[in-house]
Each structure stands twice: as structure tokens, then as C-alpha cells.
């Protein structure tokens, strides 16, 4: 506690950087996961290969991905963009399956009813399928948010400052309290993102109850994590 009180300025600065580094991959990951997720849902035959390909991306350990991206994209190894791209890749990889699962969880009878009411395929997707897929999408996005916040810390090994800086600096200087501060601050940031997403869900999906859906809970349970 003493260490934290003596260094609030540093921790706050790192936390803000950390939050900024987390927001971009979460938002971009969600948006970029929609097209492949929808495609995997619409085209049954493409589903297996699409989900397997994104699953494979997720198996790449984070530090290895930080090394692989710069030569592929043509950016500097130490660039902050490197971390943003890598974390977006993970976010998309995690989210695609959630998009497919979420759309799959929409009651087919409702979809037929919408078609019978005269919705076009395009209109039905935006007005019926996507909103009804909301709860499972949200569950998936919460998983993405929490794991992104945690993964940002690894970026410090390639020079991108975040709360992870407290881990390497704490180890080098032998200050346990500094590392513990970093862990607690990272967890709090993850909780903050989670709370914000839940609040956003209440706002955008007011018809869903408090209880998580079964499919949503399964997403929360079984989605993996890459360190």
C-alpha cells in the first residue's frame, strides 16, 4: 500500500495507457469478427474451416505474435501499433465463434415470423437476428475484454508501456509491492471494462433479464485464454 501511495502518479499514468491500449482491440475485434462470424453462420459448409482458422490464430502465444507481426505488416518491432494489431488478432479470433454461436442461438421461429412479416434478408439481419443475438454476443465480448486487458501487460517485454511495466520494473528492483500493485490494477481495469460492458448491454438490450442465458454462460466458461 505504501508503494502505491508513493507512486500514484505513475500507476495512474500507466493505467490510462493500459486502458487506451485495451479499447482499440476490443472495439475493432468486435467489428472485424462480425463478417467472418456471420459467414460461418450462413454457410454451414464454411463454418468448420472458418472457425478452425480463427481458432488456430488464437493458439499463437502472445510474445511470439508480437515478434511475427512486424515483418509481416512492415512496422517497427517496438511500435505500439504492433501490440494493437496483435491484440486485435486475438480479439477477432475469440469473437468469431461467439458471433456464430450467438446467431445460432436465435430462435428459428422468430426468424421465420420476421420473414413472414415481410423483412428482407438484410433488414431482418439488422432488426431481428443481430439484436436477438445480443446477449450471447455480449457474453463473448466480455471474455474478449477481460483477456485483452490481461494480455496488454505482455507488451512491456517489447517496450510498450502499460501496467505490465510494474511487473518488469518490480522484478528488476526487487519490489514485491510494485508487482502486486500492477496485478491488482490490471484486475481492477478488467473489472471496470466488464462492468461498462454489462451496463452497455442493459442500455442496448433492455429486454434481457438479469440472468445469463445458458449459451452465454457456456461462452463465459469454455472460451480459452492465451498468455
Amino acid at each position: 500500500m505504501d508503494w502505491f501511495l508513493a507512486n500514484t502518479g505513475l500507476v495512474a499514468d500507466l493505467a490510462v495507457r493500459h486502458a487506451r491500449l485495451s479499447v482499440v482491440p476490443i472495439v475493432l475485434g468486435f467489428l472485424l469478427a462480425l463478417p467472418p462470424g456471420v459467414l460461418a453462420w450462413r454457410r454451414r459448409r464454411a463454418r468448420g474451416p472458418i472457425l478452425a482458422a480463427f481458432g488456430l490464430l488464437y493458439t499463437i502465444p502472445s510474445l511470439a505474435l508480437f515478434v511475427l507481426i512486424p515483418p509481416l505488416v512492415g512496422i517497427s518491432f517496438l511500435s505500439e501499433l504492433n501490440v494493437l494489431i496483435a491484440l486485435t488478432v486475438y480479439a477477432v479470433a475469440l469473437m468469431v465463434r461467439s458471433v456464430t454461436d450467438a446467431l445460432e442461438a436465435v430462435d428459428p421461429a422468430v426468424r421465420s415470423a420476421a420473414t413472414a412479416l415481410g423483412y428482407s434478408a438484410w433488414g431482418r439481419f439488422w432488426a431481428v437476428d443481430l439484436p436477438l443475438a445480443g446477449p450471447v454476443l455480449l457474453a463473448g465480448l466480455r471474455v474478449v475484454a477481460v483477456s485483452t486487458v490481461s494480455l496488454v501487460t505482455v507488451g512491456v517485454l517489447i517496450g510498450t508501456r502499460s501496467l505490465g511495466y510494474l511487473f518488469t520494473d518490480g522484478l528488476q528492483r526487487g519490489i514485491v509491492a510494485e508487482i502486486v500493485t500492477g496485478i491488482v490494477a490490471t484486475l481492477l481495469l478488467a473489472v471496470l471494462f466488464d462492468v461498462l460492458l454489462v451496463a452497455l448491454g442493459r442500455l442496448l438490450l433492455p429486454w434481457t433479464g438479469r440472468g445469463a442465458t445458458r449459451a452465454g454462460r457456456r461462452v463465459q466458461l469454455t472460451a480459452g485464454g492465451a498468455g
Partner: protein
Amino acid sequence: MTLFAEAWAWLTAPEQWSGRATLLDRVGEHLQYTLVALLVSALVAVPIGYLVGHTGRGRQLTVALAGAGRALPSLGLLTVLTLLVGIGEADRAATVVFVVLGVPSVLAGAYAGVENVDGAVTDSARAMGMTPWQVLLRVEAPLGLPLLVGGLRSAALQIVATAVLAAYVGLGGLGIYILRGISLRRYDEMLGGAIAIVALAIVLDAVFALLGYFAVRVASGQGRLSTSTEGHR
């Protein structure tokens, strides 16, 4: 792309394949950390997961643990435990971290596998006179095997990835190449190491995919048993 050619040259250079601490030795170390930690995680998490799935008590706990496992920054855990036990004992600290990060996935897989078994199936097993232990070991465990293997698969990947970071606290394994490459500014070594890590992760994932395939066969074999009894009606 020349960088990849250099990385390939590094990967195929003779010093990576003979002498002390070859690439294969590093792969071996990495696999050893992973498998030991996975085994310990399974010994801890499978009984608890089965208990939770069988009794239905403690469900919230597994969901909370799964979330906490994802949120915990692995680098933070590695560094703090290394400081606490001393740099010389980094391997023990790292194994603890691997297990801490592996347990939630295995627990979730074991629990979800048992809990997803159709209630009618366990009811009929009980009606046939099976004891709770028999229901668990002969019905719920085989039917839940695919999800358990899925849990082990994500735990293995999590541990492989964390073992890469463990090079930072002085552990061996493949992460050494990346960290040494970073400090020496040798991109060929960094990239070569990264390629080796990706290859290891993908091979391991494929092994678990294969195990998952066999697990589904075990689970559906159990299903065949029930259809054959149906035929006797």
C-alpha cells in the same frame, strides 16, 4: 520477407541442432513444463469439476474462477512469485503459475462435461440401480469426455504461452530465443524462436484435437449402448 529467410537460416543452422542446448532440447524443456503443469492441473481440477458437475453445487465458483483465470496477468504472477521464492527457484515458481492458470480451464471442462449430460440419461442410470459413483464414472465421465478434453486443450495452450514468458524470469524453454533476441537485437533468433513456438503450439493443439476426436467416439460409443437397449423394448 528477407527477415523470414534469415530466421529460416537461423532455424536450420547447425548450432541449433548439435552441441549444448539445441533447439530440440528447448522444445523438450518447453514440453516438459507444459505436460507436468497440465498433469498437476488435471489432478487438482478434474475431481473438483466432477464433484461440482455431479452435485450441481459450486457452479458460480467455476464460472468465477474461469473469469479470474482469464483476467490474471500471467507475467505479473510469474514475476511476483519469482521474487517471493527467489530467482534460483524460478522453475518452482513458474510451475505454480502454470498450474494456477491451467486449473480454471480444466475445471470448466470437467464441470461442463458432467453438467451437460442429459438429465434423463442420469435418471435412467440411477433407475437401473447404479450407485452415484457408477453414474459418475460410467455415465457422466465418458459422456463429458469431449468437453473435458476441450478444457485440457485450452489449458495446454495457456500453459505453453505462459511458459514462453517464463524465460523472462530465468526459465529455459523456447521463450529464451525471443528474449535473448530482443536484448541482443538479433531479429533472426527472435523470429526463429517465434516460429518454433508457433509450430509447437499448433502441433500440441492438433494432438488435443485428435484426442478430442477419440473422446467424441468414446462418448458416442456410450450412446450406442443406450440405443441398443432401446431396440430391446
